[in-house]
């Protein structure tokens, strides 16, 4: 049975030791980690870097004691372990509650529907006596800066950054000696990133727990950690640990190498293709216009015999989309940026006002994009969703790309060029769901472009992407712009907006809009 923490629950920082440790997921030919030798002293704070496929997440899951039953694809089966990986000299599985793990997707870091219950969940599972749980809950909520919320506050009403801080509180209430963060801020806007980072810093200063964090964006964590370890995909010849040392030294020694591997080293903005000639604002023919637009994701609701129209998140928005022009939609979280973009894209019905296509874009399909048939829509306005998996409709990369052209009856010749240009040629037979994050992003852009739309709308295209995919995407979009496509992107990424140039539509927080 797990040694339960004493009721007072003082934190003892945990030590980690790996000796020739390796892990192969069930059903995979190559091991995710091979020959890992690593010692982490109690209280050390470590940033784990490396290209995708280096086994960073696998190591974190193993340290949390949750590796083995289910792999990342939700498959169960036999996996291979070699060498040893110990937390405080014991197997992580036998040390339930010694380590707390936070993952990337905020929605799945929340377990229960009320704030207080969610924080208490871990402590309950460790059989902490009831009288000791609630003081821990209050303390943990204070440590992550959420003590202003009542304990019965619904967790569904929290923002992404708040959800991640809540998850941290749930971990802290277990009083773990080892805190494991697996890209905890990849899905958050800039404010959310700082919220979470600062909450982690405060709680570590207080408890002295050991930290292992995996994250692409080094600048966020650099000043908080005292050691950086760079992993590489393991093989018989190379050790799993490529570099190991204090942050400044590792970043100095390996800056070029890390940047080449797609790591966001501080102060580095990858070079992107410049536009041939920056067009004057207002140049390029008008394709799509929004006037006095009110938007909402909700549909009209039925309450008995009455129909209640939704309350718009934004009202009275105007925008113009012009050929060869970039338009960036920016603003704080919850301002309705994505909702606006989806309405502009003909995917949501306007609550008020209108979206109208000019004759050059509509080509006989009618003025209102929401009323277009799906086939009419994709050859005019293409939309790339934030989550690429939402848009996969077949089981093979090549079929994904051919899907649009086949429906339209033309454009199959363009597929070859897109495969080449977005480096997907080697992956034509792969299942889209098995690709890496960067490959999925490139594929989702390619599939939408295969239908040759005149307007391309992208929702947070750079979220969670490494520097290489980022640069490729920005360069590719600048080519499209020069070729006359209109590019609309919803983004928090100031560097991305700058790389594309063009106009910016800044949306104020939704509270400013009267219901």
């Amino acid at each position, binding site marked *: 049975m797990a040694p339960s923490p004493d009721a007072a629950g003082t934190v003892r920082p945990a030590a980690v030791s790996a000796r020739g440790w390796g892990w192969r997921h069930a059903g995979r030919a190559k091991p995710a980690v091979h020959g890992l030798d690593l010692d982490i002293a109690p209280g050390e704070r470590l940033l784990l870097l490396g290209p995708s496929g280096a086994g960073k997440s696998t190591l974190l899951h193993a340290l949390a004691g949750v590796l083995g039953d289910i792999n990342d694809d939700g498959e169960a089966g036999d996996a291979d372990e070699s060498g040893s990986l110990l937390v405080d000299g014991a197997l992580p599985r036998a040390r339930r509650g010694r380590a707390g793990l936070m993952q990337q997707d905020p929605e799945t870091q929340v377990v229960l529907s009320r704030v207080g219950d969610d924080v208490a969940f*871990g402590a309950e599972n460790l059989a902490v006596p009831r009288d000791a749980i609630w003081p821990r809950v209050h303390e943990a909520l204070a440590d992550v800066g959420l003590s202003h919320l009542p304990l019965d506050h619904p967790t569904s009403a929290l923002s992404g950054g708040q959800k991640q801080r809540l998850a941290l509180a749930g971990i802290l209430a277990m009083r773990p000696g080892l805190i494991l963060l697996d890209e905890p801020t990849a899905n958050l806007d800039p404010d959310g990133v700082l919220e979470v980072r600062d909450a982690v810093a405060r709680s570590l200063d207080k408890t002295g727990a050991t930290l292992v964090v995996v994250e692409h964006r080094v600048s966020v964590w650099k000043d908080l950690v005292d050691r950086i370890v760079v992993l590489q995909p393991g093989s018989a010849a190379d050790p799993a640990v490529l570099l190991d040392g204090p942050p400044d030294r590792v970043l100095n020694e390996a800056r070029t190498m890390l940047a080449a591997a797609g790591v966001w080293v501080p102060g580095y903005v990858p070079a992107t293709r410049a536009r041939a000639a920056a067009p004057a604002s207002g140049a390029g023919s008008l394709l799509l216009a929004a006037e006095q637009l009110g938007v909402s994701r909700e549909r009209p609701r039925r309450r008995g015999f009455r129909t209640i129209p939704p309350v718009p998140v934004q009202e009275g928005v105007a925008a113009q989309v012009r050929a060869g022009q970039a338009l960036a939609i920016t603003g704080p979280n919850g301002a309705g940026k994505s909702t606006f973009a989806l309405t502009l894209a003909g995917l949501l019905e306007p609550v008020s006002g209108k979206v109208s296509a000019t004759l050059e874009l509509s080509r006989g399909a009618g003025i209102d994009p929401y009323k277009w048939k799906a086939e009419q829509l994709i050859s005019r306005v293409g939309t790339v969703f934030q989550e690429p*998996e939402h848009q996969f409709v077949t089981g093979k990369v090549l079929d994904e790309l051919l899907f649009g052209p086949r429906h339209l009856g033309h454009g199959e010749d363009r597929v070859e060029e897109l495969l080449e240009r977005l480096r997907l040629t080697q992956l034509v037979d792969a299942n889209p769901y098995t690709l890496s994050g960067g490959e999925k992003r490139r594929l989702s852009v390619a599939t939408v472009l295969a239908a040759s739309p005149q307007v391309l709308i992208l929702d947070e295209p750079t979220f969670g992407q490494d520097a290489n995919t980022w640069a490729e995407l920005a360069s590719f979009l600048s080519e499209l712009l020069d070729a006359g496509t209109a590019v609309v992107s919803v983004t928090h990424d100031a560097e991305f907006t700058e790389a594309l140039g063009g106009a910016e539509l800044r949306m104020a927080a939704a509270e400013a809009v009267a219901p």
Partner: protein
Amino acid sequence: MRQELTLSGNSALLARANPLSKFAAVLLITAVLALSIDWVSASVALVFELLLFPLAGLTVSLLWQRGWPLILAAAIGGWSTSILAPDSGRILLDAGIWTMSEGSLQLGIGFLLRGFAIALPAVLLMSCTDPTDLADALAQKARLPHRFVLGTLAAMRLVGLMAEEWQTIGMARRARGVGARGSLGQRVKATLGQSFGLLVQAIRRASRLAVTMEARGFGGGPRTWARASTFSLLDLWVVAGGVLVAALALFAAVTAGTWNMVWLGS
């Protein structure tokens, strides 16, 4: 929809009762009503239920908002019974193949009232019971395995998310050229594809949630409960109330001679 699943702000008397006692009371009333189609037992139960509504923090308009499909179904059931049931007694309405007689009208009204009287306690129970409290009661008092109860509770939270995900996937697929409009065949095909997309996302989310729960020490071992599920004097009143309403409905119907066991035929 997700907000409606939580009860924050409902401080009504019945919201404080243990979910298990409320469930027992509703079960008793429903059982008596399910045994007979007659208007006397149904009306007696219905009157008491309407009197109890304020105790659950419900108003007539809230009741209509949450329970209108059930109420509408009961009304349609009553109407069709009264025109389609075998005629007996004086004919009240004759419109070709549709006839309504005294006997069939009586049966129809009985059906309508019974529908209301069975539907309302269910709405009442849902309106004043938080799913988390129900899970606490099932695990601590009814001694159901906590792994099962808490797993279900956590999964229920994902159901609300899935409703949003369904809408997003629908839009994402339209953006790929999969029309959700058009002929019936096309729409069925599109819905099947969208369901598969949702299933994939549901499995991914569920396995990530499982990792989160396991990493927080969730498993088969002994655990404590931060919220104690307790019975109080109130619960005694709730169960007694259920017994009383059921007994009065039964007594009234038998006394009036309208008690009419379903399986004995009329």
